[in-house]
């Protein structure tokens, strides 16, 4: 009886955040990447460092090309932290800087991170980034930092948080109004900026939410599913371009 109640309350009140990415809709415009940088105070490292492989993009658009010229098809895949339920990055952290929250997020506690970078090696998606130097912003960009997000210092790992600052604000607002967060009312920065509506964010515990509906789609799959990481992100495979007559 008690267990049932707990389960019920988890179903109704508990959130489990997830994302769905419709690869059919993604145009590869990278607006999400820019929005993510602006929202989360992600530093730019400059051309020299970037060429050495030290860019920090919590979100990236992977481009893959198929076919021979001129019959070439570009495929885009937005990749960001998959917020795995069985995350390889979490057990390896010696200080619990990388740990699992009750809402299914892989939280990164910047202040607790000592920079072993083990989590970044363990992550098969390569979505964890390291501050090799203290971050700097060219003037006047330093004036546009988001006050809701902390700036990370040198030696600290960082990664996509599913805009946890927005989640927390929405939760506080909902609690003040004595209601739960409505589906669609809470959007991460990347979702908000996606003109093609390729990204959908929401509560996976709510079976009626848009993201739950898409997660059940027969087109859905998980990235590197065979590793058993149980990601919270569902990718909806491309299908239409075969039929569109472009080939």
């Amino acid at each position, binding site marked *: 009886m008690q267990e049932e109640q707990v389960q019920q309350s988890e179903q109704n009140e508990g959130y489990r955040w997830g994302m769905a990415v419709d690869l059919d809709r993604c145009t590869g415009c990278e607006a999400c990447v820019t929005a993510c940088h602006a929202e989360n105070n992600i530093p730019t490292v400059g051309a020299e460092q970037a060429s050495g*492989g030290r860019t920090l993009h919590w979100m990236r658009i992977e481009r893959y090309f198929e076919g021979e010229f001129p019959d070439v098809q570009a495929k885009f895949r937005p990749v960001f932290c998959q917020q795995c339920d069985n995350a390889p990055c979490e*057990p390896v952290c010696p200080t619990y800087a990388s740990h699992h929250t009750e809402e299914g997020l892989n939280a990164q506690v910047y202040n607790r991170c000592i920079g*072993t970078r083990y989590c970044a090696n*363990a992550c098969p998606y390569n979505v964890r980034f390291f*501050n*090799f130097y203290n971050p700097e912003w060219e003037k006047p960009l330093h004036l546009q930092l988001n006050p809701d997000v902390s700036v990370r210092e040198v030696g*600290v790992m960082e990664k996509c948080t599913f805009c946890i600052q927005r989640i927390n604000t929405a939760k506080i607002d909902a609690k003040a109004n004595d209601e739960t967060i409505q589906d669609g009312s809470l959007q991460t920065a990347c979702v908000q900026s996606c003109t093609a509506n390729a990204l959908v964010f929401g509560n996976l515990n709510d079976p009626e939410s848009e993201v739950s509906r898409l997660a059940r789609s027969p087109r859905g799959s998980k990235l590197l599913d065979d590793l058993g990481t149980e990601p919270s992100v569902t990718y909806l495979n491309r299908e239409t371009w075969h039929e569109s007559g472009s080939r």
Partner: protein
Amino acid sequence: MNPEADRRMTEDFLRPLLHTTWKFYVAVAFFGSIVLAGFATWGYQIYTGIGIAGINSPVFWGFYLVNFVFWIGISHAGTLISAILRLVNATWRRPITRCAEAITAFALMIGAMFPLIHLGRVWLFYWLLPYPSQRGLWPNFRSPLVWDFFAITTYLLSSLLFLLLPMIPDFALVRDKTTGIRSRIYGLLSFGWRGTPKHWHRLESGMHIMAIVILPIAVSVHTVVSFDFSMAVVPMWHSTIFGPYFVTGAIFSGIAALIIAMALLRRLLHLEYYLRPIHFQNMGKLLVTMSLLWGYFVFNERLTVWYGNESHETGVFWATQAGDYAPFFWTMVIVNFVVPIVLVGIRRFRTITGTVIASCGVVVGMWLERFLIIIPSLSYKQLSYMWGSYAPTWAELTIMAATFAGIALLFLLFSKFVPIISIWELKVGDQPKIETDQPLADAEAEGELA
């Protein structure tokens, strides 16, 4: 034992302690300045950020971790030679045990620094330790890095004990042979050793216990180091063979390091009479045995990956067999497998020089092995979009050079303050016949032909 031989031995081994030439100071200054440069680089890295190293995304671990595994591997010299040979009571071990145990202690001290050097925020390193903090936070015991901390600390403490225990009678000897402040210091270090039967009995049983205890510790410590890699779902890291593979490689490189150290001490401290060709021969045989075992493990590891043809692993596999990292791989195979077997396995080449050359090759090869385990796997992880590469910077090279200079410096100082050969053990054992009239060259030639 005839008193003449006894006196000569004491004289031979105390000479480096009592007489210092200008060459010693020059060598200390040389190695010391490289070590200082290493510390300065580390200081600069702490000040500016670990970005001065060559690591990047996706290769987040570079030379620092390669050197970490390498030096922990070198530290396995002492345990194998000393503990195993003590347990089986191989008498020829007597002149080389102290040297082996010293390598263990020094290589561990150096190796254990690298996890700190590679930290992004080293000033918070104590968060790795289980200390009572007011927030009630403990380290994450699920993390292999925490296992590492315990394994290496245990190994360091026990190998220091293992090194210090048999030094007590020798300290007492130095105490008795010197005067003034020097005698007083060595008197303190010898813990009031008087050489009574009770003292000897306690020392022997203490050494016996330590020799038994330290073997499982040594095996476990490099297994735990291998867990740093094999616990992660990274292509070609996630392998069950890593535990024994790492232990084998560690002992292999440890033996090679010991042979090199023995040859240097023999030459520099004029110990030709005590470190005889037979020692190099026996150590050479061990080197070949470990070379064969190591080759077997490499073959196993490569064959299963190639045959399994698992899509995530093929990127790493072919990068090391025929791609960017192939030159390093095949160099490693030649210096770790072909060269030792030719130079030590074939009797005609089995000279001191040949054994030392093979050992130098093995040290280089085992360093390359650690490089090949860490770097290609991180360069070619699952998502090909994020494949990358790595090159070290001046900072990593300076710190690496400093560690090699560091072990030279530690050895130099050690041989200045401690008899580098365990005098009492040599005296109680049936050491090579001391016939003072037999020319050294003859003895050497005899050994080489044997």
